[in-house]
């Protein structure tokens, strides 16, 4: 993975010094909260429901054990001994003190981490495929491109006061494990006539008005990726709406202009921008790409797994994915134990996962947008020992992609933007469906919960989605069916009137019963829904 050189270190340190000074000026009253707010947001510091919340960047979801140990240290020293992994592969701490923020950023900088641009109207964390470098289906590792984009977007002088936030995802496989089509820019590295290029999808997003990003350019030469992105951003910065915060994302601009007109404007800008020398030479890409060379994995490592422990076998079947190198596997660690809080991990659990990565995964971990953790390069022979360690720590829930593998935003328990609590709903659903046999019978069922219309829980992209709303002062939950954030991208459809906290759990059970009664062989829930439509499900829910 990427290691900072002296320039990267200097930039992060300068940012720490800048923010420390801004905090000092705020505490001394030299700047108001109104002036300070965009500055602290550009350093990932929110003023949230209970305290300041700090969102630490995990660039394209990749980190090593040293960094993971630091995240545990921060949880222990400065917070309440746990962290929350997010739907953009970052980590959040909910109980941060402003006066501690500079010291925390210094600690992070010491292990090449930061909270730069994890909030604010600027380009956010570049996300990617959590199985990059390990999955057989990728045409190349997308992360060197993500790193190139990260540096290009960091402290970008023209794009730090955009109309609204800007999220970019990069993948390099047909299977979309990063919800790329639901980003402001989604880049898919593709192959055409023996060459690699970048397909640019621009204008996706969830929130109030979910939209799937249309294809704006099917093949940008990789050498031109940054200048093309620059052109896309410049058109947005100039013409994105600034009159209404709910219409300020690029998806609205593209929707209002139409994809063709937006493309035309980008092409025109790109023709100009290309001549500015923005694109780094191939030598820079090669310098970065060299650091993503896959670790030396012994392809002759034993390929069979001793499945005599039945609990271990269950976990292997559900949570262990195939690695491109024989004798190896990808371990998916679920942070969704029944009764737990989706995406949360204690400092002890974070330390354990760091240790396992160092010992068994060539010192690398990934954070997924489904709020889980991945050990990407594990020997099959080590799986049992890993599972035992995970099991002792409460990290061996064998529910990857099952109904209890819920994506949930923090909701009203933590977030001042929320209208309803999301975590108790997630817990009740997981409890209702806790029987693993039942979950496996239901199969792949991606359930996503948002506590408000901002959709941080990606409810539009859930096979089953839940949106918490405020209905005359009480929490109410709307049900959506048929969304997907994968390559079969679609937006969920609302079923009808909402439910209270217990009602929504019952409604979901009626939905899953209907699915079981209706499906044909091999159909996932979302496939059945797409085949038969909303009507039979609506009937089952409301009678």
């Amino acid at each position, binding site marked *: 993975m990427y290691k900072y050189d002296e320039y990267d270190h200097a930039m992060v340190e300068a940012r720490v010094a800048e923010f420390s000074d801004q905090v000092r000026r705020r505490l001394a009253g030299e700047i108001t909260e109104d002036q300070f707010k965009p500055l602290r947001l550009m350093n990932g510091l929110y003023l*949230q429901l*209970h305290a300041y919340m700090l969102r630490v960047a995990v660039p394209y979801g990749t980190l090593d054990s040293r960094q993971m140990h630091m995240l545990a240290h921060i949880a222990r020293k400065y917070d*309440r001994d746990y962290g929350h992994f997010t739907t953009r592969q970052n980590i959040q701490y909910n109980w941060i003190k402003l006066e501690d923020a500079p010291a925390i950023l210094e600690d992070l900088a010491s292990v090449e981490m930061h909270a730069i641009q994890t909030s604010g109207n600027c380009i956010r964390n570049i996300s990617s495929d959590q199985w990059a470098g390990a999955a057989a289906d990728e045409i190349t590792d997308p992360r060197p491109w993500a790193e190139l984009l990260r540096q290009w977007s960091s402290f970008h002088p023209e794009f730090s006061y955009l109309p609204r936030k800007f999220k970019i995802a990069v993948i390099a496989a047909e299977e979309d494990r990063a919800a790329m089509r639901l980003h402001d820019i989604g880049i898919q590295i593709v192959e055409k006539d023996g060459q690699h290029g970048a397909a640019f999808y621009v204008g996706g997003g969830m929130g109030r008005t979910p939209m799937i990003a249309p294809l704006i350019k099917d093949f940008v030469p990789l050498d031109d990726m940054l200048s093309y992105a620059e052109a896309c951003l410049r058109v947005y910065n100039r013409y994105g709406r600034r009159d209404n915060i709910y219409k300020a994302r690029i998806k609205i601009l593209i929707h209002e202009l139409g994809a063709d007109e937006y493309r035309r404007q980008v092409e025109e800008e790109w023709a100009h921008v290309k001549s500015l020398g923005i694109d780094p030479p191939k030598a820079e890409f090669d310098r970065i790409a060299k650091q993503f060379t896959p670790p030396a994995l012994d392809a002759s490592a034993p390929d069979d797994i001793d499945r005599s422990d039945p609990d271990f076998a269950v976990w292997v079947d559900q949570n262990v994915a195939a690695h491109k190198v024989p004798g190896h596997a990808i371990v998916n660690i679920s942070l969704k134990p029944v009764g737990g*809080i989706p995406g949360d991990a204690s400092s002890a659990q974070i330390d354990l996962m760091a240790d396992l990565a160092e010992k068994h995964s060539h010192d690398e971990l990934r954070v997924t947008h489904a709020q889980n953790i991945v050990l990407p390069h594990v020997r099959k022979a080590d799986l049992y020992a890993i599972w035992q360690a995970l099991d002792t720590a409460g990290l061996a829930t064998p529910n990857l992609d099952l109904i209890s593998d819920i994506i949930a935003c923090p909701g009203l328990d933590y977030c001042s933007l929320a209208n309803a609590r999301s975590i108790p709903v997630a817990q009740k659903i997981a409890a209702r469906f806790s029987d693993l046999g039942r979950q496996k019978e239901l199969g792949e069922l991606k359930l996503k919960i948002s506590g408000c219309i901002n959709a941080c829980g990606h409810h539009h992209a859930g096979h089953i989605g839940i949106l918490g709303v405020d209905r005359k002062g009480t929490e109410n939950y709307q049900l959506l069916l048929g969304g997907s954030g994968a390559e079969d991208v679609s937006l969920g459809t609302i079923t009808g009137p909402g439910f209270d906290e217990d009602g929504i759990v019952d409604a979901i059970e009626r939905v899953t019963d209907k699915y079981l009664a209706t499906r044909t062989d091999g159909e996932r829930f979302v496939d059945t829904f797409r085949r038969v439509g909303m009507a039979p499900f609506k009937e089952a829910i409301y009678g």
Partner: protein
Amino acid sequence: MKLLTGNDLKTGFVTWWTGADWSLHIEDAADVGEHGEAILAAEEGARRVNAPYIIAGEQTPDGPRPAHIKDRIRALGPTVRPDLTLKPADPNAGDWVI
């Protein structure tokens, strides 16, 4: 009743105006009546509070209770982590929120 609330600038903790000072505990909160805006402006200007705002509440035997569930969660702590609330030893504390 009207309650004045905000966050402590340095720590971020939720605070409640007591009539004379800021407290972490909503039981200490005073009814600011029609004077809330003036107090808010003075306290914010002096940096004794950050992001203050006025909410509706009702007086109950247990003390002031905010009208909106969001502020009740602010007052106590997350309903899903009783151990992180201001009343970790009280198993019924969450009922007050809901």
